[in-house]
């Protein structure tokens, strides 16, 4: 295992073992990648980039999904 990464995830501080890709992060959080969208440092990632995008120290991530609304 590598060192601990400190990131902001959905507005909250998180520490996790890294380095890791966005796909690995979603797996660790038990989130189905087909049901969410991810913004990485203010850039929305296409799903095909989840595998190739590395989460680094200080990164800001937003993971969103659809909920009920009008």
């Amino acid at each position, binding site marked *: 295992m590598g060192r601990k990464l400190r990131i902001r*995830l*959905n*507005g*909250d501080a*998180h520490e996790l073992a890294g380095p890791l890709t966005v796909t690995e992060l979603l797996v660790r*959080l*038990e*989130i*189905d990648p087909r*049901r*969410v*969208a*991810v*913004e990485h440092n*203010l850039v*929305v*990632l*296409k*799903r095909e980039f989840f595998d190739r995008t590395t989460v680094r120290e200080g990164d800001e991530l*937003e*993971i*969103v*999904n*659809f*909920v*009920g*609304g*009008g």
Partner: protein
Amino acid sequence: MDLFTIADKTFSSRLIVGTGKYSSPAVMVQAHEASGAEMITVAVRRVNISDRTKESLLDYIDASKYVLLPNTAGCYTADEAVRTARLGREAGLSNWVKLEVIGDERTLFPDNEQLLEATRVLVREGFVVLPYTTDDPVVCRKLEDAGAAAIMPLGAPIGSGLGIQNVNNLRIIREFARVPLIVDAGVGTSSDASLAMELGADAVLMNTAIAGAQDPIGMAEAMKLAVRAGRLAYLSGRIPRKLYANASSPVEGLVGR
């Protein structure tokens, strides 16, 4: 068939419904069914990281049956709305967005300046933008000029159930609008939906009027019929209003005269 087209999609239903505020997913699914709607709105929110037990809304929505329309509800600036729209596009793999930029917490009235700015940005990025706006003909024209795929003036504040408050503004907007006119928000009951359609709206969008009814499934069917009735009345041409009576039965041949 009386079809209705926005951008590249054609619909036979002129009722668009939401997914918020239902007492249970099962009731929502049945209400959607009863409404006959083909397009449904959804909101984009952060995934709850600490509690992953909650089911996803998409578990209950048959994406082959409905066009999903992500909204930017709750956004107060053009930047937030654009960010949310981009996330919604990736989550739903569709470039359609119901664009909301709110300007006031109590009324949830749109901030039309920010709305116009967000519309311009998203149109440039290839979105099909359906902006929720006030029933202001000047703003509606500006949104149309900015490339909106439809204009969606409110009938009354979101969730208020007050019904169509400014019939005359909607009539004026109807006169010039070249893109579909969708009355979004304010409907309380079926007659409000009929009225919107009688004024010439191409469609009506609602959430609370159905989800908040005592029987959402019954109300969904009422709305389906009301939208259809209002549309037929609009196409059929109502009679002019007259101050005095005009007898329906012959005035000749009366007994005893």
